């Protein structure tokens, strides 16, 4: 049966649409494990802040949100929240909330927040499809969309409830890249402007926009170096840079950074370079090549040197902010550990362990180089983009675990190109044989690609034994196709498994298994936060390590001293110092900061390894950074250099507030094992004078302490406590015939 061209076209479209819809469906549904297993709840830490900010936005106006001064965090400093956040995410959910209300769907803001990431993952799949289609063809695009839809590297940050900036940022990253490629290819100011618009959205949504800010200039720079400069590049880049930079400066948090910080200087420099290149090109067309070479070439080099010297000069003089510490740690993984413990202490800032690559992308990781190799074969302008992206992405993903996220899209794109090429070659079962040597297909000219179209060679007649070759080819093709179908099946299986087992825990609720295999939920966090919400005054100030700041703010609705927005290292170090000092030192700090309650996470009873004693060394280190004379990390180790909490624990350790709060009443009377550190806690009762236990949750996971008020009689709290417990009581007359050691009245 012969189908007309238009029928083929509409079937093609129908297939494409249904495939993309299916992919979006798969992407969304595989992210719903957490909602089904647990409940519709905001996950982890940062999302709690985003959620709280979204609520603020929805309950107040955008204007109020923009100028929000948050006095419930960073007590007593407060935080200029409206000016120090990326509002994209909250505004997006706020707009969705409003739109749904307009169509009479009053959906709770929480549910919008929870479902935001899965919804956007569908869009990401579409954006990746568009991007990959530009690179090869639509079949590769569909594959890439399917890959990004379920790749664990992306799912890890976009399951339902993971309401974080990355949830929408990856979509924006891919759509910006797509529009950039489009602009570059067509040399269109329109597409450049669209690219700038998406870039602006990206800037509004995620601090990772700097990645784009450097990727696009780098792409242009490489193109210029390769001598591929043309007017299309000029138009696309100039439009994007001018509009994008102006737009990005409208975000309060970004402000003047694009012209003042080193991270943005590459974009500015390339902007200048493009102008020079355009000028040089013009000169080139006017003079002879020889003249051009000597005059223009030389002056170009001179200009670049001057620009670079100016850049260095401005940086040294402080007009341009030097690289931030977080950026240094991208180049030297050991830098943060030595200089900025606050950054090194964050687990997602650690260098990636190699199994993580496989874990997060499975077979795509080995298809990735193959795809890049195939791209090298053709090396059009846009292919250079993928190459640059893959190099940068791989490097950054190797340096920091969280940047695995930015690498995943390019892995998916390259792998899709590799597999699609493979299918192009081996998936052709038509009776026509192809030339032996064709392994790399010639790509179709742009805009004319048809999926599945066979690339033909003209040298058919030269083959001798067509039938034999065909059979042989069929076997070989069959083997490759079948094995790759198997791999793809494995990939889907792996992705589902990883998603369901590793990335779907809200981490607010912990799941464990009972001996009979049934699931048991440990809900201590919420128990404690709810207790705080219900039993403490509304303006009570809670001190905890910064990890729990956002959660306390979000769930307990109480004022915190420090939180996950680690903008003030000194304030965090103050908390670290209070935690790692003895009660006598800590109490004045607590009083000065008007602390009412102290919250610690203690996993020793349950065997929960993410507790505060395990994070304790970071508190010590961060405090040591500010008070090297008072806090010394060495003091918290045993003389043998071990980190012990049992009877061998060092004095500083045993006297520290954190140790006391963690093990208070834990092993009273009998020795008890700490199940995290596998050490026995000595039965000596721990004495707390300045704090009193307020609440301990069911599994001892969260412990709350109330800070005692000053003694009514003006005694220090230690002697007050010993009087109350009767320890100071002396018997007989002798006690009074001796004078007490008072500081006598003048």
């Amino acid at each position, binding site marked *: 049966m012969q189908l007309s061209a238009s029928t083929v076209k509409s079937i093609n479209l129908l297939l494409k649409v249904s495939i993309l819809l299916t992919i979006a469906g798969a992407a969304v549904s595989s992210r719903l494990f957490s909602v089904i297993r647990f409940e519709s709840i905001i996950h982890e830490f940062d999302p709690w802040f985003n959620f709280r900010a979204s609520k603020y936005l929805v309950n107040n106006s955008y204007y109020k949100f923009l*100028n929000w001064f948050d*006095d419930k965090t960073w007590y007593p400093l*407060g935080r200029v929240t409206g000016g120090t956040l990326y509002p994209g995410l909250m505004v997006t959910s706020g707009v969705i909330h409003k739109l749904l209300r307009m169509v009479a769907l009053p959906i709770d803001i929480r549910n919008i927040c929870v479902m935001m990431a899965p919804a956007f993952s569908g869009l990401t799949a579409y954006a990746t499809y568009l991007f990959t289609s530009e690179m090869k063809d639509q079949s590769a695009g569909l594959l890439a969309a399917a890959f990004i839809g379920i790749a664990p590297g992306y799912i890890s940050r976009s399951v339902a409830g993971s309401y974080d900036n990355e949830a929408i940022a990856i979509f924006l990253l891919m759509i910006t890249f797509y529009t950039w490629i489009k602009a570059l290819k067509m040399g269109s100011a329109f597409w450049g402007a669209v690219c700038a618009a998406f870039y602006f959205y990206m800037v509004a949504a995620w601090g990772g926009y700097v990645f784009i800010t450097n990727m696009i200039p780098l792409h242009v720079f490489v193109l210029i170096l390769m001598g591929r400069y043309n007017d299309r590049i000029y138009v696309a880049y100039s439009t994007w840079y001018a509009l994008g930079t102006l737009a990005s400066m409208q975000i309060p948090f970004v402000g003047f950074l694009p012209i003042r910080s080193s991270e943005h200087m590459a974009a500015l420099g390339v902007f200048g370079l493009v102008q020079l290149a355009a000028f040089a090109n013009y000169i080139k067309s006017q003079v002879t090549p020889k003249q051009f070479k000597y005059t223009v070439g030389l002056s170009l080099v001179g200009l670049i040197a001057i620009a670079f010297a100016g850049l260095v000069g401005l940086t040294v003089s402080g007009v341009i902010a030097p690289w931030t510490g977080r950026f240094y740690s991208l180049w030297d993984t050991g830098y943060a550990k030595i200089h900025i413990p606050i950054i090194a202490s964050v687990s997602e800032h650690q260098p990636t362990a190699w199994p993580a690559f496989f874990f997060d992308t499975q077979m795509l990781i080995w298809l990735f180089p193959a795809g890049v190799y195939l791209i090298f074969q053709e090396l059009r302008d846009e292919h250079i983009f993928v190459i640059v992206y893959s190099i940068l992405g791989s490097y950054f993903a190797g340096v920091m675990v969280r940047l695995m996220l930015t690498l995943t899209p390019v892995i998916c794109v390259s792998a899709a190109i590799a597999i699609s090429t493979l299918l192009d070659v081996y998936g052709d079962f038509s009776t026509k044989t192809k030339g032996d040597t064709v392994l790399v297909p010639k790509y179709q000219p742009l805009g004319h690609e048809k999926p599945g179209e066979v690339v033909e060679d003209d040298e058919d007649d030269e083959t001798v034994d067509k039938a034999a070759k065909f059979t042989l080819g069929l076997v070989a093709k069959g083997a490759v196709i079948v094995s790759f179908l198997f791999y793809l099946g494995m990939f889907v299986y792996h992705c589902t498994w990883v998603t369901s087992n590793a990335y779907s825990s809200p981490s607010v609720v912990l799941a464990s298994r009972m001996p009979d295999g049934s699931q048991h939920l440990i809900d201590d966090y919420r128990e404690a936060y709810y207790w705080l919400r219900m039993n403490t005054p509304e303006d009570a100030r809670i001190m905890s390590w910064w990890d729990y700041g956002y959660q306390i703010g979000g769930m307990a609705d109480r004022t915190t001293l420090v939180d996950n927005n680690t903008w003030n290292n000194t304030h965090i170090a103050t908390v670290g110092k209070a935690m790692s000092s003895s009660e006598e030192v800590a109490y004045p700090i607590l009083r000065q900061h008007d602390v009412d309650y102290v919250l610690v996470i203690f996993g020793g009873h349950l065997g929960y390894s993410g507790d505060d004693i395990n994070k304790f060394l970071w508190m010590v280190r961060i405090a040591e950074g500010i008070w090297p004379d008072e806090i010394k990390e060495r003091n918290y180790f045993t003389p043998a250099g071990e980190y012990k909490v049992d009877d061998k624990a060092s004095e500083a350790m045993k006297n520290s507030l954190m140790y006391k709060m963690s093990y208070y009443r834990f092993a009273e009377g009998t020795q008890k094992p700490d199940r995290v550190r596998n050490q026995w806690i000595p039965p000596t009762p721990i004495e707390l004078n300045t704090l009193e236990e307020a609440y301990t949750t069911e599994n001892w996971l969260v412990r709350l302490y109330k800070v005692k008020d000053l003694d009514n*009689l003006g005694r220090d709290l230690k002697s007050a406590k010993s009087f109350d417990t009767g320890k100071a009581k002396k018997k007989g007359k002798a006690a*009074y015939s001796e004078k007490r050691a008072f500081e006598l009245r003048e």
Partner: protein
Amino acid sequence: MANNERRKKNAPMGKRIGHVIRRGPFHQIIRPFRQNRNLQVSPFSRVWTRFEFHLSSGHDTNSTALHNTSPTMLFVRTLVLAMAGLVAAKPPVEARTAVIVDKNTDLAQYSQFFDDAEHLLDTVTVIDVKDKSFDLFTYGYQAYDMVILFPPQVKSLGPALTSRKLLEFFNKGGHILSITSPEHTPESIRDFAQEMGISMAPKFHKLVDHFGETGPNHDSLTLDTVNSVISSAENVVYSGSAAYLSNNPQLVPLLTAPSTSYVYDYKEDEEDEENAGTMGTPWITGSQGFPAVGFQGKNNARFAWVGGDIMTNEQYTAHPGNRQFMKDVVEWVSVAKNVISPEYIRHNLAATPDVLNEKIYKVNEDITYSVALTEWDNVKEDWVPFIADDVQIEFTMLNPYYRLTLEQTGTTNFSAIYSTTFKIPDQHGVFTFNLDYKRPGYTFIEEKTRATIRHTANDEWPRSWEITNSWVYLTSAVMVVIAWFLFVVFYLFVGKADKEAVHKQ
């Protein structure tokens, strides 16, 4: 008559004024207070009565039970008779005083003391120290507001009056007046006082002075009070023990021993026949000895200790100074004297004095803080303005940004208004107005009021054209726009015309 009763009732209620104020935002409390003043229904009375009611119901059942079950408990006839009329005229919710005695105490000896104190001690319950059913607390609440401990001759005051119970009573706001004698200083009181920094001399120690008119045994000293804030009695004739004091700033010395005096163990001196007339090392010498001391807790509960029994009728008749002194001390302990309280605390923008106690202010604004201080006048039985020139506040975020002395800017009928206006520093954050007024002998005032200071919002900066410096940039921006427009015009039309002209030529 009804009004008078109300007035009477105001006295003890007023003592709690500080507590009441903390119960809600000031403007809520203050306005009804001022409006209803003429009606004699203050919000204090409302709140306090409710609170009291709860207590008194417990107390009533308790005392009835005591009366029924313990025959040893005494309602001393003379006292009850003396105060019967008064008690009957007063509402049942009053400052409840427990007088702790033992069976050797003859309260008739102290009738003048009680007569003087009658207007302060509303319901007096006399309790035998041996009474096993006696308890300072009923269901965890205080059963009494004040306890007067007479020097008992028993060694121990029993389980109801251990040092820890006394401390708990004190910490919950109860007032204690303790009189001891060199022979009888119960250990619980000694322990309790020790915690405050009062180190009483051991048993059988007394204060003597060999100079001046000090009687045959050189132990009857004539002293003047040292603290005119509490008492300015002169010629207090004292014989008894003394204590030495720590540097605790909450202590208020009432009497100081003369520099020539000392405290020694007279019993040892008497028993030791060989060295009769000479004595061992004195316990305290000179003006380090304090025969009477007051103490005020951070919760404004008051405690006073007198180391010798100087308040019998006999003493009173002989020495009017003693009478004056004890009258003042009782007045002080029963918080009828030196009671100051903030009637209200306000902060507002200097520009808008009508909008009070906003939760949030902006940096660099001028702000006015004012506090109205009032003092209880026991003679007038009313609140009067409290006049002082040393009232300060701190404007604090972690550290004080300002420490300002408030100026008196006016008076209301009941209080003096102190205020100051200052410019909020250019620093956002949660600031505290810290009013910390602690003067020895006076009620401590420590009021922390928090206000958030926010940053300048995006539209609160001056517009760009209002800044002269920006004109350069504005001009250049406008010029570029115009230049661009001209360029386009020229490029499109002028050039073409030229070319056409050239072409034509």
